[in-house]
């Protein structure tokens, strides 16, 4: 039995997790080297967990016989990117706007004081691209509610089909041999229980447990990690939500390459910048291709993908360090546009 709707939802989940990665990478690499050590560690700790979430969603999709896709203009994310709850993901340098956006992404209850739609940004959002999750779910929804809906659908299908639902080849699962250092080990999904575990981990690490600021591993949930950056104060163990009382993180928004918001390769009229941007996009596209191969039966493809990620970082840094002649005070940045021919 094909479960097209479930596959669509899980494919949308893979894309959702993937879409969160470029904005975090922009914040991370726009920080000057050696500046903002505490903030960069926080952004890094979150982005590697988003990578884990993408792999977990892909494992569930593989478990029910699906084929995760992350390549090509259809599946690679486009920016600005609107999540199913209306939050817009922009490509921004590390700064108050980016931190406000991260707080929103990580906590559906959080409402920004308006900076996420600030005037400065509005003219850098010519077209907003909707996440696939906004169309395959039952309506406007938070990320957590979207995953709850998937779990409910999985339970229904499992009740109807029994073991037939989890018909995927276990060899397609990405295991801890190849995925590592990303906020926990991936979970091998072979049945309803493991599927539930995998998706619950995504919800738990992302939005956190309403009862606690800390996740099951004892780490602060993403929202609280970013709140520390927003108020430039560390949470101590005894602190209650909203009132961190520890030392300053030493947040320095000036030690940042002032990347232009939501850049596009076509905007780079300088040929050197345009070439650098294409090189970065090719590297990003190559990462996506290697991830897709890894999630379609060849998990060892993640090993060379690590090398490609280093090369992507180097190309991002090259763009971020370069001023844009026609945007005084602004630097170039990665555009994260798909740029590889079909194979």
């Amino acid at each position, binding site marked *: 039995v094909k479960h097209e709707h479930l596959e669509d939802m899980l494919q949308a989940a893979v894309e959702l997790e993937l879409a969160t990665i470029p904005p975090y990478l922009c914040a991370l690499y726009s920080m000057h080297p050696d500046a903002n050590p505490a903030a960069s*560690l926080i952004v890094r700790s979150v982005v590697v967990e988003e990578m884990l979430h993408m792999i977990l969603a892909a494992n569930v999709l593989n478990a029910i016989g699906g084929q995760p896709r992350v390549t090509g203009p259809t599946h690679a994310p486009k920016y600005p990117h609107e999540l199913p709850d209306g939050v817009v993901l922009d490509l921004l340098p590390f700064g108050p706007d980016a931190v406000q956006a991260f707080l929103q992404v990580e906590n559906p209850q959080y409402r920004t004081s308006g900076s996420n739609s600030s005037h400065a940004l509005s003219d850098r959002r010519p077209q907003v691209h909707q996440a696939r999750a906004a169309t395959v779910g039952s309506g406007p929804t938070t990320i957590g509610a979207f995953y709850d809906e998937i779990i409910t659908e999985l339970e229904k299908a499992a009740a109807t089909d029994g073991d037939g639902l989890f018909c995927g080849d276990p060899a397609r699962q990405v295991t801890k041999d190849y995925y590592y*250092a990303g906020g926990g080990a991936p979970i091998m999904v072979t049945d309803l229980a493991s599927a539930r575990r995998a998706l619950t981990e995504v919800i738990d690490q992302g939005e956190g447990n309403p009862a606690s600021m800390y996740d099951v591993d*004892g780490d602060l949930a993403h929202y609280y990690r970013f709140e520390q950056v927003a108020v430039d104060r*560390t*949470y101590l163990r005894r602190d209650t939500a909203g009132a961190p009382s520890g030392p300053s993180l030493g947040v320095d928004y000036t030690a940042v390459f002032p990347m232009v918001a939501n850049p596009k390769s076509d905007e780079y009229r300088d040929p050197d910048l345009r070439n650098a941007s294409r090189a970065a996009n090719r590297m990003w596209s190559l990462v996506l291709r290697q991830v897709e191969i890894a999630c379609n039966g060849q998990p060892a493809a993640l090993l060379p993908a*690590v090398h490609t990620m280093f090369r992507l970082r180097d190309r991002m840094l090259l763009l971020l360090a370069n001023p844009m002649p026609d945007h005084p005070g602004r630097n170039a940045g990665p555009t994260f546009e798909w740029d590889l021919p079909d194979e």
Partner: protein
Amino acid sequence: VSAGPADEEHYDVVVIGAGVNGALVAKQLTHAKLRVLVLEAGPGTAWTFDGYSGHLQHFFAASGKGPESAWPPALNAPQPDTADIRSGGGYFVQTGPQMYGSSYSRLLGGSTLHWLGVSLRMLPEDFELHTRYGVGVDWPLGYTDLEPYYRMAEMEIGVAADVADQVHLGVTFPAGYDYPMQRIPPSWSDQVLAAAVDGMQIRMADDLYTLKIRNYPAARNSIPRGDYQPVGAVDQPADGQALARDLGQRCAGNTACTPICPIQAKYNAAKTLAQADPTRLVVRTQAVASRIHVDPDSGLVSGIEYQRYDDPTSSRHTVHVASGRIYVLAAHAVENAKLLLTSGLEGASGQVGRNLMDHPCLYAWGLSKDPIGAFRGPLSTAGLDDLRGGGFRANHAAFRFDIGNDGWRAPTGAPDATVADAVSAQGRYGSKLRDHLTSVLSRQVRFSLAVEQLPAPGNRVSVDPRYTDALGNARPVLSYSIDDYTLAGMAAATEVYQAVFRQAGITDCTDPEAGTWFPSVTYQDREFHYHGMGHFAGTHVMGDSPERSVVDTDQRSWEHRNLFLLGSGSFPTMGTSNPTLTMAALTLRSAESLVRELAS
């Protein structure tokens, strides 16, 4: 200097030194529910992620990138620096005739902070050198005694290797065993060289040896086997946000293992200390053990006097005494001997401080015909170690070659020196300069020829009241020579590397006069420029009699039965493996014996 009131504190075990041996013993004993105090002479900066990051910044900013460049010492815990060998200054007082070429670090984590991570076992024949070849001495225990502890050590420090690569020269593993992690992939250079060299034969004495480029076991994280969890960066923040621990769960091929792995994918002793039971462990850093108190009637140690300082740049300190049921010196081969000697515990055997060894090492460098991908990957992922054992050891030292992945960095200062040479000496510029560098840098091959050294009583650490540090503690006085056995080994190693270069079509560019300065020693009509491998050993040798040795097979002092001396200082001989894995195995064996004794 301010001498505070001597306060007393009591533990089950007092450990001196937070390096690999101190950390391993602290972990084992605290997990056996024993209360342990670790005194560390230097700062504990490597214990926190921020502190470690500070060392990384220090390394980035350093103009020279030597093994010490990331790890500056505190005023009150001075340490040797290889740059001192040429200037003649520094912590060591060297009386010659040869210069001892190695250094170590006095910080929490010890020299594992800047080791390369190679984790070879010693060969079975290394333990029986005298019986088999009539040279050196035999160990009082053999390979089979130590084999189970080698496995434990490989688990504790996290070694990546495949047993299939390591079964040779008599080294055995029990059926079904493999290392906790898969081997680090061979570099492109390893693969190119293997294609050219594997199978070539070398005649030495009356025997033929077949060479094979072999993957090195490495204490670097790789793909785990079974349930093994690779241990990433140490992150012990007070507020519980251990966000850095995701770093370093796999080696990412940074070419900076020595002096500092930027992501902590390489083992350092702080990782082990972080696994100890924190409720039973007190780690006191910036606490310099200065004297061992011994009860004159029983010969038992009654306390360790130590000097505590708050400011690493000031000699202001207070004096304290720690006492326990058992005392463990795990401060380094040189520091263990120094502390015994300054406490007047030279002992009846007269062996304390003697038999100091190293692996004096020659660089060989050349240019391959085709690019071999130099300057990529961990500093070394493979070696040529077929001449670590064999009948020739009756005549001269054994040796092994590290195959570098970092071009001519170590012997000449490449790539900077290569650029300077191309511009200044050869007058190249523009696209011709770029083409030249692309061609030359990618073809740079480097071997390190590490040669065995036998124990000699005249090679020794001593103390002299004329030479003291800021706290008034002794500086080690080193007397050191390299004998004909080792020099003949250097000559043989030179012939072998030249044959290997010829076989692989590598143009030999070895020219110590033009390269980085290293001390030299003459043999017959030739001069060998050598450097140390950091492999200090032999200052409190193990043996089966109190007359000829300092410790027994448990590394327990013959004369002070509640005192253990851990580390490579206990090695009667050291073969050609780097000492860390073997001393970790010995320490785990000692810890087992301590637990048996104290828990009962």
